């Protein structure tokens, strides 16, 4: 009897393993992500047509422009208090969290992190194929993961502040693609620590190409630029300068708009989406941005110097040649250049130049202030009609140089996340804090430097399924 029991036991065990083995098969017709070349395809993602690379609401908060195709007086007077109402009137009492059932940016960027970067990082080592290529893919993924977390933390959390960031609530730093494991929110300090770790991990692989495959792939120029922007945000200006210089050593191109001022090119300013040589990494909601954006009169008056070529209307410029029909604000201007593809969510050489200029302005030793002024003047020269262009005199103080840098940065970076990020960053320092005001129909609305409006609410569809996500304001 015992023998029989043993036999049955052995038989059943064999059957168990036979069943398991029999049902181990590899499906056809799907990318199994098991080779380097298969993983490579993930990085061909089209970053140029993702709605979440549109940063309209950020620009509304810092008063670059009005909400997209919204009649402003109607939005303010409507009995329903929308998000646009809160951004337009700087009303902090509006329950923004409730009005945010979902957030494209949150979903979209984490989608890239989880389904491109983390997949590559988890699979590249085991993937068959060229090991050097595998290392390159991993380095690209590290940089991307660092970059998109950098964007997310600056949208959903406080700006980095060395004294408080260890206690400031941040965002989840997602390093796995296990859907069953909750992504726990960590502090701002931890997020930045992870970002730097990822950047360092990428450089440690020593496999990024100097020049990227195309402007939607990561190369060394972009990697150093990301490092520069992150260090700048952390107030580590010395290292930020090193990183910015490293990036500029690879790519120092700047788009020169002056030929278009004289030629009247296609009627409007022109910039291709992917190929401009000053693009370090291209990401945008669509190639025709920021079509139909209504600039506020305050922005135009403060940042667009006379002769600014963007501010021109047909035949050379970007603005609608008649009164703005959309915003309901008579003296606002409407961007109408479908031919201009702003790099809304990526980085250009302007970002490394401005990082460098700011670091120089802050260091202010030797020729630093003159060098910073030179960078600012280069950009002004390329943006302002040569007929009226006058170079700024060399700055003589950090404050003056910072003033130059802040102004030229703002003028360059409308329709991106960058003005929002910079103002939020500068607001952590008393010297560079800004109180933003806007006037609509005679009423002036004020945005305090420490306003919670600088921190976006986590969307409802995230909070409901992640109990670590408490709002950061």
């Amino acid at each position, binding site marked *: 009897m015992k023998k029989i029991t043993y036999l049955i036991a052995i038989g*059943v065990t064999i*059957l*168990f393993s*036979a*069943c*398991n083995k*029999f*049902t*181990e*098969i590899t*499906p*056809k*017709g*799907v*990318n*199994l*992500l098991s080779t380097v070349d*298969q993983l490579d*395809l*993930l990085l*061909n*993602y*089209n970053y*140029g*047509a993702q709605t979440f690379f549109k940063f309209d609401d950020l620009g509304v908060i810092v008063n670059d422009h009005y909400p997209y195709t919204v009649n402003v007086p109607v939005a303010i007077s409507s009995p329903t208090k929308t998000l646009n109402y809160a951004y337009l009137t700087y009303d902090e009492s509006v329950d923004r969290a409730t009005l945010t*059932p*979902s*957030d494209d940016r*949150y*979903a979209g960027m*984490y*989608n890239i*992190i*989880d*389904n*491109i970067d*983390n*997949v590559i990082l988890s699979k590249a080592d085991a993937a068959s194929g060229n090991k050097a290529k595998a290392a390159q893919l991993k380095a690209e993924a590290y940089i991307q993961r660092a970059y998109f977390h950098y964007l997310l933390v600056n949208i959903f959390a406080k700006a980095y502040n060395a004294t408080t960031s260890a206690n400031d609530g941040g*965002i*989840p730093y*997602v390093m796995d*693609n*296990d*859907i*069953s494991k*909750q*992504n726990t929110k960590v502090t701002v300090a931890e997020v930045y620590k992870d970002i730097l770790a990822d950047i360092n991990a990428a450089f440690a692989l020593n496999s990024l190409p100097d020049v990227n495959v*195309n402007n*939607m792939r990561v190369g060394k120029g972009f990697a150093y630029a990301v490092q520069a922007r992150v260090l700048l945000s952390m107030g580590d200006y010395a290292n930020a300068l090193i990183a910015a210089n490293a990036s500029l050593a690879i790519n120092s191109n700047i788009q020169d708009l002056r030929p278009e001022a004289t030629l009247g090119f296609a009627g409007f300013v022109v910039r291709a*989406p*992917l190929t401009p040589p000053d693009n370090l990494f*291209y990401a945008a909601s669509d*190639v025709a941005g920021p079509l139909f954006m209504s600039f506020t009169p305050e922005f135009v008056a403060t940042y667009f110097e006379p002769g600014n070529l963007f501010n021109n209307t047909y035949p050379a410029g970007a603005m609608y040649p008649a009164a703005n029909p959309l915003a309901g604000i008579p003296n606002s201007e409407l961007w109408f250049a479908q031919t201009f593809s702003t790099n809304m969510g990526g980085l250009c050489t302007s970002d490394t130049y401005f990082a460098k200029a700011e670091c120089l302005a802050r260091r202010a030793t030797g020729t630093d202030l003159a060098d910073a002024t030179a960078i600012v003047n280069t950009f002004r020269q390329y943006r302002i009609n040569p007929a009226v262009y006058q170079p700024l005199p060399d700055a003589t103080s950090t404050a003056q140089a910072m003033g130059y840098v802040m102004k030229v940065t703002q003028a360059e970076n409308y329709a991106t996340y960058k003005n929002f990020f910079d103002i939020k960053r500068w607001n952590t320092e008393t010297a560079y804090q800004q109180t933003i005001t806007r006037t609509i129909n005679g009423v002036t609305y004020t945005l305090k430097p420490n306003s919670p409006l600088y921190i976006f609410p986590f*969307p409802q*569809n*995230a909070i*409901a*399924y*992640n109990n670590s*996500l408490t709002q950061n304001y």
Partner: protein
Amino acid sequence: MRLTTIILFAAFMQVSAAGLAQNVTLSKHNEALKNVLKELRRQSGYDFVYSESLLEKAIPVNIDVKEMPIEDALKRIFGDQPINYNVQDKTVVLTLKAATIQIKSTAATDDIEVHGKVMDDKGVALSGVTVTVKGTGRKTSTNAAGEFSIPVQANSDILVFTHIGMESIEVRVGENKDLTVTLKSTTTLLNEVKVNTGFQSIKKEQMTGATVTVSSSELEQRYQPNVLNNLEGRVPGLVTYNGKTEIRGVSTLQASTAVLIVVDGLPIEGSIADINPYDIESVTTLKDAAAAAIYGARASNGVIVIVTKKAKEKRTVVEFATDVSVTAKPNIDFHLVSPSQQVDLESSYWNYDYLSGKVTGAVDNTTNQINLGSAITPVQYAWYQYAQGNISQTQLQSQLNAFKKNNFRQQYKDNAMLDDVLQQYNFAIRTNTDRLNSSIVVNYKNDNTGIINGYNKQLNLFYKGTYTVNKWLDINYGINTVIGMTNASNSDFAGSPYNEPDYQQLVAPNGSHVLYTTNDYNQYNTLTENNPNLQSLLVNHLDELNLDRIKGRSTNSRYYVNMNVKLLPGLTFNPYFQYENQQSTTSAYSEQNSYAYRLLTDLYSSRTGTDPNYSYSDLLPTTGGMLATTQRTGDYWTARGQLNYNHDFGKNSLSVIAGTEFRQQHSSGTDGLLLGYDQQLQSQSTATVDFNALSQQTIPSLVAPGYQLSSVYQNLANKIGVIRDTTNRYASFYANASNTYDHKYTIFGSLRKDYANLFGLDAKFRGRPLWSAGAGWNVHNEEFMSDVHWVNFLKLRASYGVTGNINPFANSYLTATTGTTNPLTGLPIATIANPANPYLTWERTATLNIGTDFTLIAGRLSGSLDWYRKKGTDLFANKLLDPSEGFSNYTVNNASMLNNGLELSLNYKWFNPQVRNAFGWSTLVIVSHNNNKITSVDQLATSPLAKVEGSNAGQENPSIPSSYTAGYPVNSLFSFQYKGLNAEGQPQWLKADGTLTTLALSASDMSAVAYSGQLDPKNNIAVTNIFQYKGFNLNILMVYYGGQSLRADAPDVYEAPEFGAMPSYLLNSWTPTNTHTNIPGYGQYVPPAAVPSYYLGYSDAFVRAGDFIKIRNAVLGYNLPLATARKIGASSVNVHFQLNNPKALWLKNNDGIDPETGGAPLPTSYVFGLSVRY
């Protein structure tokens, strides 16, 4: 008499299929008969059925034979015994021998001699039937030919016929002294004592699960090409409604809802519709877990076990049957305006458009449309001519009057449609010899599909057999091939009469085909007609039904072999193997002159130069047409090994099976396209076509500039492709055991573990054990019931168990989709479409079933009653996620559901006829009640529209219905609350705050979406009445379906007449004077503001109750008297006439909408049939 006391199965005689030995060797002296039988059984594999009391009358046996055929040995053994024996199949039934000598000695001199023949209900002669003259001791028994003769004293005497396994009947002698008596097998007796689950045959007595078996004799009462439809009204809990078959309600959200079909022991991949309806011996529906859990992960939706026929009698039987069914043409005018109404409706609009002065530029606009090639109706053109002054009012009127006399749909019905004739022929030869039991069955079916040039033909060939190698080995094998051929219209429009204005003429009075345009173009633009470089765009439906055809061909083959190996007493081993192969191809040939191809070449024609020196070029070949082909292959195999053990000890009867099953499904296919194809010349010029150039075209340069060539190109490109090569594998092992004590108490348990490649990176989820347990109590076998004579059979049973289900589309592997390209970089992209999900597991459906089966009042009343509670957990559904996981939702085991129900089956024999000439009437009532409710699911709809549509267009997974809501049935209808038209004729809906709106609702109005019923019927009652008299029988099935709803006749907003048929509700549309209506205004009275899309269609006002009562069919049959049948050499001949789907007896909705079609009533059909058996 209580049956089980007379049928006692000998302890060792439970092996289901005994082997057969030709010869036996016996040497016994004064041995008890019982022991001799035991020895016989051991040597021969024959089973013996007898009562203990019978054996008490046996005398000791003396026999000494060597290698004697068993028939002879039996003759010798029973020669002296007061016991008769009758061999049926491999079972020997023993009965008490009537003492004929005694009869003779008591026979009175004035006796009348009555003689006759006794048969079973299949016409097989019954020997050993005891015939007793009631009230006297006089008795005899029938001989081997079933014949008897017995003297009686008066015509009023009553003869009683009794036979084991048959219902006893009494027959009054009457004038006729030559009786033909038919005995029916009793439901609880031999023939149906076993329930076939596909894995084993379980004695009804031991069964603890809820099952219903329908035998061939019931199925043959009416003709249905698909056996599933023949189960309507026979199986409580099985509901086929609108083409969907459900056993005990829906039990899944995203996984398969298909009922598992098992044929001759193994699940099949082929369609149940392909199973030859004439070749079915029995259909058993397994409903609860105790019955179905042995099928494990595929049993959640219930199991239907089909056993095909095999030869029964020891001779060659030839069967022939044919049924011809004729279905009337459907009503194609249902809820549509007549030609004359349509002319008036259009006229009222064009009069307003061109002549009221309220519309500016109407004439210019039309001129422009004609040039653009937009659709223009003939009535519009007449008014356009009139508005320009090209024709007079009289001419206009006479044109309009002429239009009113046409009737496109009627002409279409007369010229294109046919009465649908379905012919089916079945021919079977079955032989049963000692060693070989084989059947050859040929079935041919031809359907003209109700339209000219169409057909659907099917040839079904089945050869099967059982070969007895020796006493311990039987081999079963079969080859079944089903060849299908179809021919149907491939045209986008020619198969429908609704896409032309009804006042268009199809056929001229002289019989010629009238040419006109479709809504692609208009006949008043003459560019294509006058230009030899372009193809004409005029068309006629009847021509197109010739020129644009799709032919299909399919071959489904099934090969199987299985064995029954007797290893030890009580222990058998059954290996099974089955291979199925499915091949199907279609070829759609649009000839050069077909409209589809003419239009295509015109769309891709362009010209250069200036008038009149144009030069034309074509991107597509202009000689030859287009051939689009598809090819699909499926290979499936199943292998199973199973051990069966049966052992009786003391009063216990134990039965155990254990086995393992491996299974693979593999499918693949390709699609291809030939351009410039000429079938006659067998030439093609696809290689000359520049597909890249085709893909670059955006709008046509010459013809119909409104066309979007990107979608035309996409259609062409989609005809070339690969069907993903897919392999799925399943493995499982299973066991079950049941023990019955003293024929009273049964306990049962089963266990199964399934593995599939589809799931589980995590090993612990890959195989999930599924189990069931049941108990049964045969109350009628209790001592205290021995005096309750009106109870013949009473069983109480209860079961609980868990079955599973799978979603083959849910995948736990992390994979990326391929095939797209980044438009900016031109590089190929891979995208992760689903997260890695290692926790996927089987869906679980736990069923509790409590039921009873009973036979009362001497078999007059029988039936069953079941209550069940079916709880589905771990059902596949979308689970919402923090989007930082990379997805905002994914498919996982995340929903639960509850089905509660009650099932009743009652059969009452009002008059139980014993002879052909007597009147019989029986009634079968089947009641099924099901209450379905989702108990938990994530609400996916984010807007009211998404909820009512039940679709997530634009969401991550648009195929997952977003209407699933906890607390409501799976197939729920949710609707906007329509509050009619306001004073301006604008439709308005209720908002969440109780106010009305004419605009689309926003996400905050979710609570304004109302539940408006379920699509599946809650209640189903079927009543079958069977009358018989003098060989005639009448079988009427009446059905009630209730508790379901449907959307029907929801109005659209018609801003202007449309090119095609127009709905009759427009006649009652809103006008300033007709304000008591729900229908928005038409033409000049359209609502002033845009009506939100889909809001009318999904309004509660247009949800109709789906309850109805119909006579499903009535069959009048006649069985020729045996004597007549004999004259043509047949043993039985039956002719029958069947009426299907006459006008509904009652519809709950007031609009005459047939809930089974959503519109016009199901067409009535008539079946004429004949079956002959030799």
